[in-house]
């Protein structure tokens, strides 16, 4: 079965002004998978989403959604997908309920079904209280939740979310995450999300592809990506600088770095190296006063592969 899958093969998108925003991108998303497209500003994330969701035409390559070719049968693809674009698309003069009901009617629900579905979705995104206020009075977070609800009206098997939490406060962000996870885990919805936030990709995604300058520069599961950069950092604090210096002497066969009373040791696997290090130090009567181990974050991967610190949270 191909339902709920996304297959992108050598996708190229060149805009009218000859600018190539997406350059030979390929990936596959399985049914029920949560896929994160990670990249800095201008990387080509939104462009990819627009092509995948029938808003924009591809220049070359192919895109298949639920087994349907996007270029050949965009109409059919629209029944399979729900899309939350980067900029919310709401008629500010309509209430949340009216917008949801209208969306339902567009997807061929009867008036009664549409109003039932609207009620259901208002509860899902926590807007029941606000249902009859016009959306122009909504906060940014409320607008996003309403936008999300509108894309769910026809129970799409694949959900596209272009930067779903950019500009939201931590609380709203958590609530969107929770909803995405629920849809993904409980309802088996395939999720394609773009984000500039590594923690978001780390939190939600089964697969991450990092795009920069229109090209995919790294990809894999969050764990694989972290492993590719690979090193853990052990920090040890000593009571005096002399002791710290002595410690450096002892550990000089390793990758050591000294700042005042602190020693940093970079290791492939901290859990394996740490006992050995502590034993070596003990032989010389040295004992760190404080100790911490840091595993690499996706931030490190991101900065390394995109060559920028932009967007790092």
């Amino acid at each position, binding site marked *: 079965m191909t339902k709920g899958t996304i297959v992108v093969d050598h996708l190229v998108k060149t805009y009218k002004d000859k600018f190539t925003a997406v350059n030979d991108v390929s990936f596959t998303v399985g049914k029920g998978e949560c896929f994160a497209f990670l990249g800095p500003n201008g990387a080509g994330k939104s462009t990819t989403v627009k092509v995948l969701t*029938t*808003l924009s035409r591809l220049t070359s390559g192919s895109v298949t959604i639920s087994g349907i070719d996007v270029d050949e049968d965009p109409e059919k693809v629209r029944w399979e997908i729900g*899309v939350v*674009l980067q900029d919310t698309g709401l*008629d500010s003069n309509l209430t949340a309920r009216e917008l949801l009901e209208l*969306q339902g009617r567009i*997807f*061929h629900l009867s008036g009664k079904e549409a109003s039932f579905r609207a009620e259901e979705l208002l509860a899902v995104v926590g807007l029941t209280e606000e249902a009859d206020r016009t959306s122009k009075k909504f906060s940014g977070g409320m607008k996003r939740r309403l936008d999300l609800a509108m894309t769910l009206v026809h129970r799409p098997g694949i959900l596209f979310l272009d930067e779903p939490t950019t500009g939201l406060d931590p609380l709203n962000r958590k609530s969107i995450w929770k909803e995405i996870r629920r849809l993904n885990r409980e309802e088996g919805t395939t999720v394609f999300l773009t984000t500039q936030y590594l923690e978001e990709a780390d939190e939600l995604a089964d697969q991450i592809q990092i795009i920069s300058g229109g090209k995919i520069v790294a990809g894999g599961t969050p764990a694989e990506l972290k492993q590719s950069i690979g090193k853990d950092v052990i920090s040890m604090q000593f009571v005096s600088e002399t002791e710290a210096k002595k410690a450096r002497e002892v550990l000089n066969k390793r990758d050591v770095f000294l700042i005042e009373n602190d020693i940093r040791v970079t290791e492939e696997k901290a859990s394996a190296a740490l006992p050995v290090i502590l034993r070596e130090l003990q032989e010389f009567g040295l004992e760190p006063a404080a100790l911490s181990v840091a595993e690499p974050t996706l931030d490190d991967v991101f900065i390394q592969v995109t060559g920028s610190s932009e967007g790092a949270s």
Partner: protein
Amino acid sequence: MKAFFVHTYVLTKRSIVVLLRNPLTILPNLFISVFFLFVYTGGLSGIAQLPQFEGADYLSFILPVSIVSAAIGGAGGAGQELVRDLESGYFARLLQTPVTRLAIVLGPIIAGMLQLLVQTSLILGLAFLLGLQVEAGLGGVLVLLLFAVGWGLAFAGYSVTVALKAKNAQAAQAGTLIFFPLLFLSTTFVPLELIEAGWLRTAAVINPTTYLLEGMRSVLIDGWVWQPLVTGFLVVGAACVVTISLSVISARRAFSRE
């Protein structure tokens, strides 16, 4: 087919709801129409004594102007609504659904036509209170409404074209300014025979509004005279064909994917 009707219905309903929630977008236009009726009949009615008016009442003479300006207001709203959708991103959201594309444009147009009918009826009601007599009787009133809707459609086609091309509110607003030369370079306040400046006379002769006004005035003042009616409807029909075709072309472009 059923989808087409449902989509057109729900999107028309939406446009009407939006109109009703923003009475300020309707009122200025209604005000201008009423203004024509009251101020000019009050202030200029003396000139109807001139022989060129052939004994016509100035109220009957100015009423078509008032109706035309109401029609243009209702029709211009259609374009403005589309611009609002383009700017808010709702248009893009609609394009991502299987909505019948035509309904996106038809909804605001139909709502504009309904607004126009309500406004025209109000103005006619007012005119009757002021003592209006329609020579051609009830059929004449229907002709007036038909002219209003016809002209409204032509102008709606124009405003939709401008909206879809410009994609921003200022430009769309600027586009509706064409309304002024169209309305004033015509037999708006005096019959053609009384226009003295040669250039103004030429402008009035090539201005379609002139034939629209003549057609409406004929049923009001002279009863059933075919020549101005036929000319009027031909001109309005031609204007509709041109602007609606243009709007279809620009809609097609707006719906096509980059």
